[in-house]
Each structure stands twice: as C-alpha cells, then as structure tokens.
C-alpha cells in the first residue's frame, strides 16, 4: 500500500511493511500444519489485537483466504478491536457472584460507559468479566492487569480506578 504516513523519528518503521516482526514468525511456522492459530496467538501478543489489516497480512503471507483467517479469529476468543491500556476483569465465579460481583459489573458499566468486552472511549480500560480468578477467599474480587483487588464494593471503585 502506498499510504505512507510520516512517523516520528523515534518509532520509524517501514510503512510499506507494517508487520515486519510478524513476518519472521510466519517464516518459522510456514511449513507446520495447523500453523494459523499459533501465528494468530503470536500476532495478538505482538500487536495487542488482530486488526483487519493484520489479518489481511497474515492471509496474504500464508496464501489463505481472508475469510478463513477471520473465521478462525472470530471462532476463538481473539480480540479484533484495540484493547485499552489496562484490562479490568471482574470475577463472576460462584463465590464472587454471591458476594455481589454482578453489582460491581453493573456499577463499572455505568461509570465507564462500556459494555462487557468493550474498551472505554479514552482507550484506558478494556472491561471484561472472568469466571473465577482463583481468589474466592477474597470475594468479590476484581483484577486490573495483574493486580487483584479483594473484597471490592461499589464505594471502593472510584478510588481503585483513580489509580490508573
């Protein structure tokens, strides 16, 4: 594509080859059977999410139809939209659920103005729910990135979110 964009010197990238890092991976996996899922995992790791452009790039590199790549991406739980800076996961496992996890979900949905699985408009948070994060003793629990917050209640939410 010729839509070259001017980039700052610090993050200069060959705009004609936007996914160079991934190309090395694709070469490594090229002749392995069932390589698509592996490549998608690595691509998601590298770029955070699998944009349509990224999927097109993978399809072209592997000589597969785009609809097949996208079929696999949407079948499994890959992310196709940009993710927020931080990921909030509210636990809705049994213990957290009975201790009021659902209330936390509702309150967060309201205050962040996002649905489950979506990212806030400012790109700060991606909001998800989890099925048991293994912290039943601390119920209701939620995680932001790798930090677990225990015994959360609605009144604590603003204070927690303000840390990010």
């Amino acid at each position: 594509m010729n839509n070259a964009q001017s980039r700052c010197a610090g993050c200069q990238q060959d705009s004609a080859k936007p996914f160079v890092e991934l190309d090395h991976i694709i070469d490594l996996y090229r002749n392995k059977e069932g390589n698509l899922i592996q490549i998608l995992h690595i691509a998601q790791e590298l770029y955070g999410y699998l944009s349509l452009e990224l999927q097109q790039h993978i399809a072209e590199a592997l000589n597969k139809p785009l609809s097949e790549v996208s079929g696999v991406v949407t079948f499994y739980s890959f992310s196709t939209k940009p993710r927020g800076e931080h990921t909030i996961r509210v636990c809705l496992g049994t213990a957290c659920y009975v201790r009021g996890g659902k209330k936390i979900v509702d309150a967060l949905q309201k205050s962040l103005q996002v649905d489950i699985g979506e990212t806030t408009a400012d790109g700060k948070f991606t909001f998800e729910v989890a099925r048991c994060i293994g912290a039943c003793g601390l119920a209701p629990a939620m995680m932001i990135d790798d930090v677990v917050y225990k015994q959360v209640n609605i009144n604590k939410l603003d204070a927690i979110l303000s840390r990010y």
Partner: protein
Amino acid sequence: MKHITVNGKPYEVEDDLTIIEAAKKHGIQIPSLCYLAGVHEFGSCRICVVEVEGAKTLVPSCMTKVSEGMVILTNSERVRRARKVLYELLLSDHSKDCLSCKRNQSCELQALGKQLGVEATRFEGTRSECVIDVSTSITRDMSKCILCRRCVTACNDIQGVGIINAQNRGFETVIAPAMELAIGSVNCAFCGQCTVVCPVGALKETDSIQTVWEAINDKNKRVIVQTAPAIRVAIGEEFGNPPGSRVTGKLAAALKRLGFDDVFDTNFAADLTILEEGTELLSRVKSALTGGEAVLPMITSCSPGWIKYVEHAYPDSLGHLSTCKSPHTMLGALAKSYYAGKIKREPKDIFVVSIMPCTAKKSEIVRPEMTNDGHANVDAVLTTRELANMIREMGIDFNNLPDEEFDNPLGMSTGAADIFGITGGVMEAALRTVYELVTGRELPFDGLHVTPIVGFDQVKEAALTITDTLPDYRFLEGVTVRIAVTSGLAGANKLMEQIKKGTSPYHFIEVMGCPGGCIMGGGQPRSDDPDVRNKRLRGLYTEDEMKVMRKSHENPFITQLYAEYLEHPNGHKSHELLHTHYVRRGTFNELTQERFDLGVTLAEKKRDFAAQAINAAARAEQAKARSENESVRVLALEAENARLKTELEDVNETVGFFKSVIADYASRSR
C-alpha cells in the same frame, strides 16, 4: 465388492461408495439437504442420517462409507423421528416467510419438509441476527441461511477464491466475508456460483426485474433487449423442459411478448468480438514476432467475473487482458450509437436490457468504464432465472409459443457465436476466423471443432502450426501458436501463476469465470440433473452445427456494420465504443489504497439498527470528552500523587494482613 443389507434386503455394492450413493444405485432414496453429489459431501445438516447396526448413534449417510456386512436401516422409526426433529430445529432459526420468498416452490428446504411429512414447528425461540447485504450482483439474506455450507464449498473448493466462510461460533455463526464485511466491499468476483448451490433463499441475484418493468412501462423509452448464447439452452428448464433443450425461437417470441421494442441477440456482438479480439491478437503476435513490444499471452475478456478476479488477484498482469469489452456491453454501446442513429433516437431515450447467465454482469454494467458519452452501455441485467420469473408473471405459456426470430441489424449471428457460452467456445470461434484470415483456408479440424479444447477439463491446451500463410501474414509462417483454455477461477489462478512466474508458454488464453463456462453461470437455472453441463454443452454445439454460417467473419450484418459505421476492426470508432481498460484493485478490497472502514462497510444488521444509532450518539459524546482531556492532565498528575500515597497505605495494610496470618500460624503450631 461389499455385501450390505439395506432395510432387510441384501445388496452387493462397489467398494468405496458412501451409504447414500450405494442406496441411490439400488433405487433407495435417502432424504438429504446439504448433500450435493460429488461437490459437497460434508454432513453439515445431518438430514441424511441412517441407522447402522452396531453403531451407537445415527450416522450421516453422505459421509459414511459402506463396509462388508453392514446392516443399514434408512427409514426406521428412529431415523424418521430424528430427521423430523432436525428439520424442526432448522426451521426454528429460519425466517418462515415462504409465501413471499423468491424461492417459493423452488426451495429445497420446503420440498424436504413435504418429503419428511413435517406438519408442526414445535421449537420457537431466539433467532439469529438478521443480516441483509445487498450488492450490485448478489444479495445475502442471512435470516434464511441454514448453514449447509454448500456456498462455502463452491467459493473455497470449486472456485478457490474463498470470499465467504463461516464466521463466529455456535449460535452466532454466519456465512459471510471476513469480519462480516459487506460482499460488495470485498474481493468477490460476483461469479454467483454460491447462488446456484444455495438450497434456500439466502443467496440470490440482486433483483433487477422491477427496474426492467418500469422501463418497459415508460412510453418515452425505447427498450432494447439482448440475450446471451447460454440462455437458449437453459431457460427451457425453468418451464419443465429437459436440460439442454434448445428454445431459441420461443425465447425470442417470449421477449417480444414481454413488451421489449427490439429483441436483439448478444450473439451478434459475439461475432463482432471475434473480429475485434482476433485482430488484436494478430497485431500483438505480429508485434512480438517482428521485434516490437507486445504483451503475450493475450487473455479473453468476455467474462466480467474473471475480469474482477484478475483485477484483485493479479493487478500487475492486466496488460495480458484483451481490451475488448464483453459482448453484451459492445452491443449496448452499438445500440446507443449505431442503432440509435438508424432509428433517429437519442441515446438517453434508449434502455438496454441484457439477459445473461451471469450475476457478475450486473455489477459490470455499473463500472464507469462501461459508458459512452455519459450513457451506460447497458442499463439492466437479468439472469436466466429472473427472465423466467418475468415470463411467468406475464402469464406467457412459454412451451406453446411459436418459434420467432431475433430482430436485425443486431440480431443475426453465426455458429461461432453460439459456442461463446461454453468453455473453449470463444477460442474455437476465434481460431475459425483467425486461421482463415491468415491462411485463406478453413480450420483443419473435423466439423470445425477444435477437439483438444472441447470438454470440461480444468485446463485444456492445444498447439497449431501455421503454414502456407497469405502474403500479409508471412510473419506467421511456420509459427506454432500455443493456446490454453480454462473455466472456473481455480483454473484461471493456475494459468495466472504461470504468467506471473514468466513460464507461460501460450500465445492466447481463454478464461471463463464459471466452471464449464456460461452454460453453468451463476445466473442459470438451478438443476438437480448431474449431467446438466453435458446436456447444455450438447445443446449449444448443436445450435452451432445447425447454422449455415459458422464463422464470425461471414456474418453479413457484421460486414455491413464495419462498412457503414466502424470502418475496420480495432479502428478509431471501435476503440471508442468496443474497447475498455481495467482497474487495479486491492487484494482483499474493492479498490487499491483504500483500507476498510469497518463501521461503514459492515453488512447491514437490521435488528441492530436502533442500537447502532444509540452507540453513535454515545461515541460522539465520548469524543467530546476526549478533547477535554488535555486540561484534565494537570489534575491527573495530582491524582497520581494521591494514588501513590494510597497505594503505599494499601501495601502496608497487606503487609499487616500477612503479618497477622503468620502470627496466627505461629501461635497455632505452638
């Protein structure tokens, strides 16, 4: 040989057959839905399940091979009940507006319900999201899709383009282009093979019938119709005639009764194409042989599906395409210039309708290249199926029509034009004329048929050494001309790869987008006859053989056209009216350098409409909030400070918590 028992009777069947095939050979019918013999044997609908002794569950007969001593029950109570439940489950997520569905009474799901004796729909519940996606050629109505995946097979395995596939999972599954983009925004060639195999009304051609009725009813319009070669051996099937029935006369008669002012024949333009394309080929070969620059092999350009495919897949190889427009746009261009002058009408008052076996031609006519002086060459394209619907709607008793003729001057054609509808036909027609032009002799093949390129092999090739040339064509003396013919995009892909690598040995290649050529086009009647291709092929070859004139250059009206108007092939006027150029398109999307905008080009989701509007409003608000963010930064830094303090407190609290736990443990162990 395997010995099996079906419904209590012993049979001896060949090895390697599936149960459904073995049963069919012995006159036992197993109801099926997604199964398409030799094409789609996938087991996605499970309607064809049978009971096999010793098997724990019912097995799909389309995928299970017979084995020695197999005992099969195809119609036990258990089997019949299972089929009914499966059918009812299919119906539970199907929009049941059958009475006003385009496939009413030609729907395989409907027919199956009758066959299975289903009289109730017990399962009602959540329905899948209804996606209706209208492009210029193909309309997708996913509320009717039963996920049989025949279209996926046609698109991926037969055509090898893979535009549509299953997206999402479970109940959310939908057959769609990548990321559920609209089919008109992606690299679909619009070949329409998916619409031919769809058993229900989920995939169909985008309707043009209404536009055509409006034109016919408009008193100020001169409505001209033309019909492609492949229609005359196929439309009879829509009225109960066997496949391949030649109904040319009745077709012309029906078109006259529908109210068209002039009934022309695209065959005329096919003859014209041969003269234009043949001349182009000769000049390219001459240039190549005499040290000039010329792009060879030259490839035919009659099939708009093929053209769109190559524009997407091989945008660097467009120079190989003949610059000739497809025959029906040539005829349209002439109708609005040459013929308009004859009848003294303005081009704007002329409306050209093409009856085509093709869905791709519906989007071809809206290409900006297919216009002259601001007037579209062709105004509407009807598929064979659509024309049959109009004939029915008009109450015309097709089978009892008298045989009538096409109108002149754009209605007469030679046998060479008839075979344009079959794979290998354009090549054969071109050779008949070019060989005679160069040597002054008839093509040295029995019955003028170039036997190596007749038939349905994916890639066919031939070589012809030219000797004793006429003085003007001395440069061809002793030259062996190599040709190749393919139909279907998978075959085209093979030949294009050769060209890309520079290993293509050919001078001239014929490509038709649909496997088998136009007789098997995406707009042709759906047929359950496994031998339909051969029958339609036979029909067109017979049509050719019945004619006195079988070489395009013999057509007197073509000679007249050049004398009165065009002057000579590839002349100035020809280039203006009959030739075109091609567009480099993106590998995956409609135009190069234009990235998808997911928000705009997603297929329309009806039920989501309100939600989308709300979302858009919310998004606008959020964008506003974002612009205010800058001033908030200072505050944010202060908040950061406070945050760090509370974090420290938190850490202290946790440390305290752990300390107490340790103390607790220590005291307990004591």
